[in-house]
């Protein structure tokens, strides 16, 4: 396949386009990271210059770490993100399995209803969600965020996973039934491993918006002990004075865990994205 199409010019053009796109996409991240290592004056004097002996400074990181609560924010963000992903994948895949595998009245309607959430932004319901959280006493808890993010992520998860689960061979599931496996074991032991790439795709698509979200932490959990990283970083941004060193350092640090999670999922992710294309 690659032999017939290998044309030097085409290869070059393709790589050129990809490299250009990478540069554009990476540029803001690059600027944030280099500036986080510079003194305040250097940031404003030459924002695009690399830190040198004169301008190098770790003052931003020192401020962030001295703020003390930063590790707590980190931990909160991690708990919320991992917890939400866990519930999205668990409930999403279960619902997807039911929709893909069982014939029951209203199967199609149920599928459409679950997919409707993809088109309606959950933020429209913020006021109602806040009232509900107040009444259930979940305001200022991490559970409030986990529940909301789970609800937010489920529609897309169900939609993607049910498509993939339809592709899992019926014979395999039937072989399990004849061997006496319960429906739960068929689901967990036979079907889930086969849709792992799709699960990773869903995880990555959900992970980044949850990690970066400012809206719901601000509204549902603004208390000091449950602040997430994005919300916590806001203390450095004031109405009159902004501690840019600290903001940039906090943002640079915030990239690390997402990157770590991405590496975990990425091999599966690539398989998930390409699996439909080359079959």
């Amino acid at each position, binding site marked *: 396949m690659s032999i017939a199409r290998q044309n030097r010019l085409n290869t070059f053009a393709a790589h050129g386009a990809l490299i250009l796109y990478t540069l554009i996409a990476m540029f803001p991240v690059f600027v944030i990271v280099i500036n986080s290592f510079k003194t305040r004056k250097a940031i404003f004097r030459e924002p695009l210059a690399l830190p040198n002996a004169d301008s190098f400074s770790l003052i931003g990181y020192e401020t962030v770490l001295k703020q003390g609560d930063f590790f707590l924010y980190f931990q909160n963000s991690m708990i919320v993100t991992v917890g939400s992903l866990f519930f999205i994948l668990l409930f999403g895949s279960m619902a997807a399995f039911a929709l893909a595998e069982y014939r029951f009245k209203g199967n199609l309607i149920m599928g459409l209803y679950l997919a409707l959430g993809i088109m309606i932004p959950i933020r429209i319901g913020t006021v109602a969600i806040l009232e509900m959280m107040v009444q259930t006493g979940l305001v200022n808890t991490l559970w409030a965020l986990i529940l909301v993010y789970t609800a937010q992520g489920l529609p897309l998860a169900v939609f993607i996973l049910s498509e993939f689960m339809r592709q899992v061979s019926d014979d395999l599931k039937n072989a399990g039934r004849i061997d006496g*496996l319960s429906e739960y074991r068929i689901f967990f032991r036979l079907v889930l491993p086969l849709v792992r790439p799709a699960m990773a795709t869903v995880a990555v698509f959900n992970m980044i918006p949850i990690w970066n979200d400012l809206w719901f932490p601000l509204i549902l959990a603004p208390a000091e002990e449950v602040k997430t990283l994005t919300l916590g970083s806001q203390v450095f941004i004031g109405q009159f004075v902004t501690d840019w060193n600290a903001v940039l350092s906090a943002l640079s640090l915030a990239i690390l865990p997402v990157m770590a999670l991405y590496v975990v999922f990425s091999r599966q992710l690539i398989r998930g994205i390409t699996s439909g294309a080359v079959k």
Partner: protein
Amino acid sequence: MTALALTDVCKSFGSVEVLKDINLTVEDGEFVVFVGPSGCGKSTLLRVIAGLEDASSGTVEICGSVVNSVPPAKRGIAMVFQSYALYPHLSVRDNMSLGLKQEKQPKSVIEERVNKAIEMLDLGAYVDRRPSDLSGGQRQRVAIGRAIVREPKLFLFDEPLSNLDAALRMNTRIEIAELQRTLRATMIYVTHDQTEAMTLADKIVVLRDGRVEQVGSPMELYNNPANQFVAGFLGSPAMNFLKKAPLSIPENGVLGIRPEHLRPMAGGRIKGTVIHVERLGGDTNLLVSTDQKEPLTVRIFGQDGTRVGETIELDFDDAVSFAFDHEQRRVG
């Protein structure tokens, strides 16, 4: 003893009737083949027997007990699938033993039965491999092994050879026939390939559009088909059906003659032109267009010098021709 009895089994998906009043009994130790064109309901029937689909009405009995509401694992059956359906995360040995572990058989029994099956199927070198490291033929043997170890009352095969290449298909066919003889097991086998049906079956069940067209031994069906469909389905090349030839044909009906029963003969009753010749070495197939413009296949044993474009005169023995009326029923 009756291994399987189906009484008035119907199955519909929504308003589509897939199986209509199926009645069938299978005796102990019989090899029964369900055969029919795709979409005739043969696989659905097998699934109903296995319990993977519920019958809409009617009863399914296995070894004398009604199993309509018994789950597949407790019906005493084992099934081999077209796509092998091996568990991708388990080794060959674990694939075979999983069913027995689920039945909570003691370890020694599992060990003994799995080892026996591995030896029988010549899989000794592969026991620790995963299915993805095996070839198609080996995978199918593992799938058969997984069925054998359960020592079922009924083996179900769902087009097990369709994914294999031609040479392997023939070998595996022979292996399955040998297996049936050694185990003296009752087997039900679904296929759309009439060669498999003819070579394997003690009893063939021909299905069309969810109905049983005819049941009988391969030679009974071949020599004495009940209708035009069965006559045309079994036999390769397929039977010729003539409507217009200057012969005694029932009104609005057709006359069926098998290709091997036609022979070239000066002054024969059918005249035509050879339009194509297939030389297979062992025999030669002539495609003839009769003077009434009807296509006809003639099978001549051995090699034959006939060329395309030659005119030919053919005749046959009336005793081995079949007449069908306008509703495709056999009338003579």
